[in-house]
């Protein structure tokens, strides 16, 4: 069985692109192929003009691809700050041997990281929660903690897997604002979400995936009106509203 078949997707630099589709359509599989957790049987993944389809995930991260996970890529028993600091792994201005040979570099480097961590938490209003364990946060706050961890690293391309799940209206609008700010900073965003209204509002371009195939694509307005989409995913306009 093929989870994805002949799917082609373009994400223009600096844009926000949405990917929607019913459960089991292959959205997360597509994310895993792009971030390198899964290797595609064939086809190619190109990033900034280079073929990266055979690179290991941590090398892709080093190129500037960051991602969030549908069920939180965080350590639940650790504090928010510890999680964000961990996500800043690549940005640490010291190497592994430095830890033993030149510990003062580690001290200085980690202090710089703490500032970046604070800045990222500030963006999501999480500064007060920095010393709390993720397990003790509400789901929405834990989700924001993950987004803070992803954005702290300032990736060129950000893959967000279901960032709106479990968020209430105010929180979604906060997310909306942060994404807008990131876009102004030049970050490219590819996101998957169930919240169709959110996707249509925030994205420049939308792809619709169903059963491993690309059903439609285009500007949000065009996609929303596409008959195949309406039939397969959105249902009647009234239900979609």
């Amino acid at each position, binding site marked *: 069985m093929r989870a994805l078949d002949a799917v082609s997707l373009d994400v223009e630099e600096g844009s926000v692109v949405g990917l929607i589709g019913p459960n089991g359509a292959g959205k997360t599989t597509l994310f895993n192929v792009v971030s390198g*957790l899964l290797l595609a049987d064939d086809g190619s993944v190109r990033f900034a003009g280079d073929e990266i389809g055979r690179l*290991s995930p941590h090398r892709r991260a080093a190129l500037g691809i960051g991602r969030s996970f549908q069920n939180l890529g965080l350590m639940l028993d650790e504090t928010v700050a510890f999680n964000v600091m961990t996500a800043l*792994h690549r940005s640490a201005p010291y190497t592994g041997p430095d830890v033993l040979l030149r510990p003062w570099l580690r001290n200085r480097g980690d202090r710089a990281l703490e500032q970046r961590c604070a800045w990222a938490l500030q963006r999501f209003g999480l500064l007060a929660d920095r010393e709390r364990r993720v397990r003790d946060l*509400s789901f929405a706050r834990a989700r924001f903690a993950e987004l803070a961890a992803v954005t702290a690293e300032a990736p060129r391309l950000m893959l967000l897997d279901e960032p709106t799940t479990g968020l209430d209206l105010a929180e979604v609008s906060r997310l909306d604002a942060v994404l807008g700010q990131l876009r102004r900073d030049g970050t490219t965003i590819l996101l998957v979400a169930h919240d169709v209204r959110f996707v249509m509002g925030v994205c420049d371009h939308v792809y619709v995936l169903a059963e491993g195939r690309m059903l439609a694509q285009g500007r949000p307005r065009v996609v929303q009106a596409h008959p195949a989409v309406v039939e397969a995913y959105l249902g009647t306009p009234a239900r979609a509203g």
Partner: protein
Amino acid sequence: MVPVVRAGAVAGLGALALLAGEATAYKLGLIAIVFIGAIGLHILVNWSGELSLAHAGFIGLPAFVVAQLSLHAHLSPILALPLGVVAGVLLGLVVALAALRARGLQVALVTLAVGIAISRFFFVRSWVIGPPAGLHIAPPSLFGLRLETSRSLLPVLMAVVVLAVLASRSILESKLGRALSLVRSNPDAAAAVGIPVAFYRGAVYAMAGAFAGLAGASYVLWVQRISPKAFPLDLGFTYLVIAVLAGKGALTGVALAAVLIEGGQVFSILPRDFALYAGPVALIFNVTRYQEGFNGLLRETRHRLERKVAIMAAETGTADGERRWRGWGARGVRLPVVIAALLVAAGFVAVALAWYHAGNTDQVWIQNQEMVSGGIGGLGLIVLGCVLLLRDALLHGRAVVATSHTGVAGADGDADWLGASGPEPPAKEPAGPEPEGTPTGRGRRTVAAGSKGRGDTR
């Protein structure tokens, strides 16, 4: 506050150790060596989620390498310590090669096989273990200074321990430690933030090997005669018990577990074979009931203390008790409580000293004196302190409840999303008294002011 207490405790222990007699110093050294070896397994098991049952071999083989070198090359074992580390790292890398191809239970089997291979292949060869009676090396010397007694060697061993502690803390509190714990809890997320997962999994075996090698070399330095009997296969399980009892976190838990298991054995405070029977029982309890180990216990105690002080501070009218606690501002802490705590601590110290002195003398009249002054006096101090604490709790406990709820209980948030308490959506229930008999799961605690429980809800 906590660093001060910790530094004080360490300095006090060090000073006591330097005052100890020859036999006691020797036993303390054995505990310290077990502690060094356990640090390696602590990083491997508690921080990285890997497993090694070959730790006895990890310690034993480098020990023989160092012993042979100091015998044949006439190298002081003190200067050969780094060679032990190198041997340990190499051994760790060999195990890593095998363990990286496996997962979970298979890793346990692979490392067990390596452990058996080391003891069955190397620990029977005479070019490794020397004559059947074991290898004897000359007392170590340093810069022409011959260190013949355990007491004279103790500072050297202490320096090694300090070095090991500093190195492991440096590792655990840097990006390496953070990466290891993310690799442990979520390898996919680790890869996605740019951590080379396989590299780190391999490196952690090398690190464990380094600490084990250091422990092995220190053993040669300390005991000066070694035979394979010192490294039986089940020594690896003892180390595993120590690591699991310690739990994830700092080295304090490892030190406690090492003192309990190894100290109980060498000082015969605990009955013989206590570790043999109690170790596995503690392990089962630890794995099934309370996975946090000593470190979790310490963390919880600390949180409770901080919370308590915050409550006391709220009661005396200072807004930010947390800050005062860190700065040890005396206004937030009531004097009677401090005195009571000091009394209890002094009582325990008196009992411990009496115990120690009585055990080190065969004069009955001295033992009697110790029993009266230390034993009864110490118990009296403890009882007095406890009574003061109880009185304080009774007098101030009720008054605190009302003020504490707003500030402290609210800090728990609505952590319902982990699915701990049934199908309800993230806590939206109105605040109010909960009917008796409702199952109170995690986060479903709506505090009714003054009805039951104090702010301290952990």
